[in-house]
């Protein structure tokens, strides 16, 4: 193969930072192409966890001793790094467990206080279950109605249908920034502008965007933006919600407990300042600090460079798969219109079987409905196979994946796989 990548950083140097990439699976060097599910972690992030537990472990926002001060300082400094990474102020960033919890926070704290019977919530059919189910639960309590914007056969959001949905003057538009199945990058600035014009609040699910492309919430101008740490080199169990400052100030708390109060009496309590008002109980301090280390790592490399590198891998994967007559690709064909993942199916082999056979070569891909049953229904499949890339993947790994598809044909081929 003569395809060369033009990446502004040295991929081999990056790979050396990720201990797990040395792992062998079934005698083969691991080829990890399941980054949209979760990313691997660099030594720097793992070290941040160990350093915290070995040197500064203490509870935050209370206690006057040195360790408590250091832990608080490290945790709040991580919040600042995460906030600045998406163009926000730290007061506007609430740490959560993950994107799902961030969306649930908005659904319960903002939704229950602001939605009433008959109000419309606009979602899209390319949403992950985490941006559907919380709204169904809140709609059941409030009597609000859900409207779904479909996607086109090319896998792009149907903007005409969105315009029609906006004519119903929804209270909220909740849309994903990047689809975890189709890879589509949605025009979130345009969506926000149009939704605001009819008075709707806008929530963007950024789980697949922040790890892979520059995101600036001020430029998008959205009201809420949710994302997870674990898909962007940080540990599991830590994520973030950005919300417009005045909304956070107005919203009632999501959970009650320690930390989030100012004064507690027998009858009532008053709340702490934002964002602490939304972080009841001892937070996930260690993982929060490691989230900051993950952001440091990405910033050192440059998120634009990461995006450019992934685009080249995606373009190559699309080029190779498009040439295969027995394979169907889902989502936009133009690699510039999508993030670094490709969903596909063999016409005659179930994706679980594809993933199983590739695993024998140490190649980790995802097969399933990807928590997007509405997309599966529209594509008329029960599942797809998906490869998803990150900054440490190489063009050689894309080629190895493509060659291993012949193993699938060897097992299933004589029955019509090809």
């Amino acid at each position: 193969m003569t395809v060369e990548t033009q990446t502004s950083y040295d991929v081999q140097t990056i790979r050396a930072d990720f201990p797990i990439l040395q792992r062998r699976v079934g005698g083969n060097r691991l080829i990890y192409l399941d980054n949209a599910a979760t990313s691997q972690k660099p030594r720097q992030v793992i070290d941040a966890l160990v350093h915290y537990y070995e040197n500064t472990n203490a509870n935050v926002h209370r206690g006057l001793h040195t360790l408590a001060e250091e832990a608080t300082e490290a945790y709040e400094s991580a919040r600042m790094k995460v906030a600045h990474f998406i163009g926000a102020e730290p007061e506007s960033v609430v740490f959560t467990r993950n994107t799902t919890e961030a969306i649930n926070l908005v659904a319960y704290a903002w939704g229950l206080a602001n939605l009433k019977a008959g109000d419309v919530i606009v979602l899209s059919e390319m949403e992950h279950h985490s941006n559907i189910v919380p709204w169904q639960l809140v709609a059941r309590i409030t009597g609000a109605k859900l409207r779904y914007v479909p996607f086109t056969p090319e896998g792009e959001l149907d903007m005409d249908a969105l315009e029609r949905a906006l004519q119903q003057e929804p209270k909220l538009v909740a849309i994903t920034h990047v689809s975890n199945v189709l890879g589509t990058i949605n025009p979130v600035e345009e969506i926000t502008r149009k939704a605001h014009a009819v008075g709707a609040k806008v929530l963007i699910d950024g789980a697949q965007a922040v790890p892979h492309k520059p995101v600036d919430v001020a430029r998008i101008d959205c009201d809420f933006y949710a994302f997870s740490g674990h898909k962007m080199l940080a540990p599991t169990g830590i994520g973030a919600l950005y919300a417009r400052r005045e909304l956070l100030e107005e919203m009632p708390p999501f959970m009650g407990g320690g930390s989030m109060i100012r004064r507690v009496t027998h009858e009532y309590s008053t709340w702490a300042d934002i964002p602490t008002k939304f972080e009841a109980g001892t937070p996930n301090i260690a993982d929060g600090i490691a989230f900051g280390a993950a952001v440091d790592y990405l910033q050192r490399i440059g998120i634009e460079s990461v995006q450019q590198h992934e685009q080249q891998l995606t373009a190559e994967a699309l080029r190779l798969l498009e040439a295969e007559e027995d394979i169907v690709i889902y989502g936009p064909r133009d690699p510039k219109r999508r993030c670094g993942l490709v969903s596909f199916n063999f016409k005659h082999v179930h994706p679980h079987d594809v993933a199983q056979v590739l695993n024998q070569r140490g190649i980790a891909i995802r097969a399933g409905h990807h928590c997007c049953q509405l997309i599966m229904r529209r594509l008329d499949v029960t599942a797809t196979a998906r490869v998803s890339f990150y900054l440490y993947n190489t063009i050689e790994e894309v080629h190895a994946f493509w060659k291993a598809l012949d193993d699938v044909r060897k097992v299933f081929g004589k029955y019509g796989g090809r």
Partner: protein
Amino acid sequence: MVDDELYREIILEHYHHPRYKGALPDANLTAEGMNPLCGDELTLYLKTDGDRIVEARFEGRGCSISQASASMLTEAVQGLTLEQAKALQERVKAMLTGAPHEPFDEDDDLSALEGVKNYPVRIKCALLAWTTLEEILKR
């Protein structure tokens, strides 16, 4: 060859040529099974005369293991009494979950499913048809 133990010839053969696939409009016992983790879907139809299964069919979409297992099930229960079907279901379930059971003869197609127990993620695929049968027999 890859995954010999999982992708036994007989499993692939059932997958590509399922024995009793299709709806059974005059079925008197029907149940739907689903594997929410992977989206596999299955409908099992039984037509009984007294306590004897006179016809069994399935419809569904899923991986080779779930579909082959359903094909084997429909083949194996034709003509069995409901009680015999229950005993067979329990025997297959025990085989797939590694519990003590009377092993199947090597020339019985069902013996090919035994290898699945070494692939923990796939056990649910193989079990789908059998848990759907269990649902029916519980009634």
